[in-house]
């Protein structure tokens, strides 16, 4: 670990010293020993504040959306999940590759439930790789939440999601962190379209839940950040996992964000798509 | 090994002696197990369904229900087109028509799930592996025997019940016959009705039916007619006196597909009681057995 951290600090420092990048995004310490927060390193000496430990959990790629037109490329440390987030945002034309300086850091997995379903610890896109890749261990059940809910009765499922979304405070933290939720302006903030009621009611909360899932659905990169940031601790990956599960069942192996070229499931069609309608 | 619940049918027990013997011989050679349905009864053809719908369905259904009860894993096999038609209709109705299923179960006083299929010999002989088996076991080629394959109406019709792919010019038997070295002739009466159903109660009216079948077979060069039903077989050969008188044509031997296969597989004429036919077939068969491949 220390070895790797040294490599990261070195890389960040080198990048900042060369002046090729405006700043580098990584992880920094917080006042809580078991939490890290995103760190924006602007000067070479900032690299010393860089942290890389089992608590370097937060996804940091989404911050790129806050600086869409940088004067200089932005340096980012990318694990597998961060790289998929970057692919996602590139595919959606939100960020440009030439604005990025990607420092690849194969991840060793963190102590977090989300990491148990990780399918790519190694970054899928990067400019340089700071240390050797290691194989990703066999992931746990990819649809663990969805499978559990599917096993319930229809009434049980409704009761389950009602209970979940009755607790939702509509803070939209899940949206803010999600690399697939990268619209310039989110539909929930636009009253004009009328797609989403603003009330804090079961109905509108449920509709928000389903809509968020459907908007993300085929573009979800399965990083689980939505659940991490939810202040109410709601198991909302259950919604997106269901969509991914169905897509995988319908057309076979499908994964979003593994590159920046593959089409989204809902953006294309096949003449022989399964027809469940008569 | 293939195994079926076997429904012999009444004719097999009496008039169709050579057919029965040959079937036993061929199935034995092919290693196809026939488990006779215990306590089976007449399928009712054709008076059963003439008399009543319930009787027409219940008589065959009883045997089927017994078969499914005793050997739930076995499909049912029969060598008679009439029996096939009645059994298969009972199966089909029980599957597709709730009212019929109700009548059947009430009348036979047994549950009948219609879970197993009913097959005829043509279905089984046409299975790829059985066909291969036949080809392997043909020890004597019936080279050049010009045979008219007569399917009869009830082995192929009605389409929705039998599922036969071609009801006007079926070919499954022709393909099997060809395995023995015989030459199936192209003729037009393969699936025309022989009128066996009315040979008692409308005898004079229905005599013309076998006659025109015999005539078309012969005018297309057939030396023998091969059948897949004891009723058809009997009807086609028993009426030949009248035919000869009326048309001036020669008699033509008629025997079942089982007999043809048995001969090709090496059975002696005596073994399968070929002499029991009305029209002697020995000469025709002997000629074919002597013939060398062209």
């Amino acid at each position, binding site marked *: 670990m220390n070895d790797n951290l040294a490599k990261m600090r070195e890389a960040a420092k080198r990048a900042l010293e060369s002046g090729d990048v405006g700043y580098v995004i990584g992880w920094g310490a917080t006042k809580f020993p078991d939490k890290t927060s995103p760190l924006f390193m602007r000067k070479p000496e900032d690299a010393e504040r860089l942290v890389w430990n089992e608590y370097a959990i937060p996804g940091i790629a989404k911050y790129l959306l806050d600086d869409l037109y940088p004067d200089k490329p932005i340096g980012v440390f990318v694990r597998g999940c961060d790289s998929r987030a970057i692919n996602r945002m590139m595919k959606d034309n939100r960020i440009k590759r030439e604005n990025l300086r990607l420092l690849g850091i194969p991840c060793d997995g963190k102590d977090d439930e989300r990491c148990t379903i990780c399918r790519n610890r190694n970054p899928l896109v990067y400019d340089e790789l700071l240390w050797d890749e290691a194989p990703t261990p066999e992931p746990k059940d990819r649809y663990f939440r*969805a499978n559990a*809910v*599917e096993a319930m009765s*229809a*009434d*049980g*499922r*409704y*009761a*389950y*999601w*009602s209970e979940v979304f009755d607790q939702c405070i509509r803070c939209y933290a899940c949206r803010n962190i999600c690399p697939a939720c990268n619209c310039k302006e989110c539909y929930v903030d636009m009253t004009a379209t*009328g*797609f989403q*009621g603003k*009330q804090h*009611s079961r*109905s*509108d909360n*449920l*509709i928000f*839940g*389903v*809509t968020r*899932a*459907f908007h993300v*659905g*085929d573009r979800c990169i399965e990083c689980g950040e939505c659940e991490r940031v939810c202040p109410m601790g709601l198991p909302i990956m259950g*919604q997106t996992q*269901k*969509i991914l599960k*169905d*897509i995988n069942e*319908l057309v076979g192996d499908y994964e979003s964000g593994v590159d920046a070229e593959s089409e989204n*499931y*809902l953006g294309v*069609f*096949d*003449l022989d*798509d*399964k*027809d*469940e*309608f*008569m | 090994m293939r195994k079926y619940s076997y429904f012999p049918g009444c004719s097999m027990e009496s008039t169709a002696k050579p057919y029965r013997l040959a079937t036993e011989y061929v199935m034995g050679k092919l290693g196809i197990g026939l488990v006779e349905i215990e306590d089976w009864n007449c399928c009712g053809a054709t008076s059963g369904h003439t008399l009543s719908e319930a009787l027409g369905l219940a008589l065959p259904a009883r045997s089927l229900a017994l078969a499914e009860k005793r050997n739930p894993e076995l499909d049912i096999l029969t060598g008679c087109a009439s029996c096939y038609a009645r059994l298969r209709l009972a199966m089909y109705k029980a599957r597709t028509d709730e009212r019929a299923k109700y009548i059947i179960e009430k009348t036979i006083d047994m549950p009948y799930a219609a879970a197993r299929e009913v097959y005829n010999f043509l279905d089984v002989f046409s299975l790829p592996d059985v066909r291969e088996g036949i080809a392997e076991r043909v020890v004597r080629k019936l080279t050049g025997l010009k045979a008219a394959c007569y399917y009869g109406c009830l082995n192929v019709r009605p389409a929705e019940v039998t599922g036969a792919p071609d009801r006007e010019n079926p070919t499954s038997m022709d393909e099997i016959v060809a395995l023995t070295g015989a030459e199936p002739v192209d003729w037009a009466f393969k699936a025309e009705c022989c009128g066996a159903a009315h040979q008692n109660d409308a005898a004079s009216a229905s005599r013309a039916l076998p006659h025109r079948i015999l005539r078309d077979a012969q005018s297309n060069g057939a030396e023998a007619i091969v059948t897949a039903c004891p009723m058809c077989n009997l009807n086609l050969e028993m009426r030949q006196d009248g035919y000869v008188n009326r048309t001036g044509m020669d008699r033509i031997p008629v025997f079942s597909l089982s007999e043809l296969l048995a001969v090709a597989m090496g059975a002696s004429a005596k073994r399968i009681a070929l002499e029991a036919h009305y029209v002697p077939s020995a000469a025709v068969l002997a000629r074919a057995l002597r013939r060398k491949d062209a």
Partner: protein
Amino acid sequence: MSVKETNDPKIIAFCCNWCTYTGADLAGLNRSHYPENVHIVRVPCSGRVNPQFILRAFRNGCDGVMVCGCHPGDCHYSTGNYFTRRRFTLMKRLLEYNGIDPGRFHARWISGSEAGKFRDTAEEVTAMVRKLGPNTRYREYARREMSADE
């Protein structure tokens, strides 16, 4: 929740202009009767139907929702309904997953000549939804309705 509900369901059908809307018109021309519960919203193509419309309909009090378009291959805009098929296959499953009875949401292909199919579908869906009773899930009960009974 004490809301007065009659068992006279409201069903909304989003129908594409070229096939199903035409088919429904033909049903009229043929005087094919179907329940009054089905209300058609005309859209140019089934591909125009945003899943949001469906959620909105359930939210505001529809008991059943239909999305109907041309048969695959027959889309007036060549490909619209292929996207419809993908989108609503997922949506239908997601709704069911969220506890909405599958009987409440139907997607169907009905061509301009299938007046009979339109009638049959309208009848079938109405019967199904009637059997399920009024929809309460995803339903936003307006204050007005609630106070009426309080």
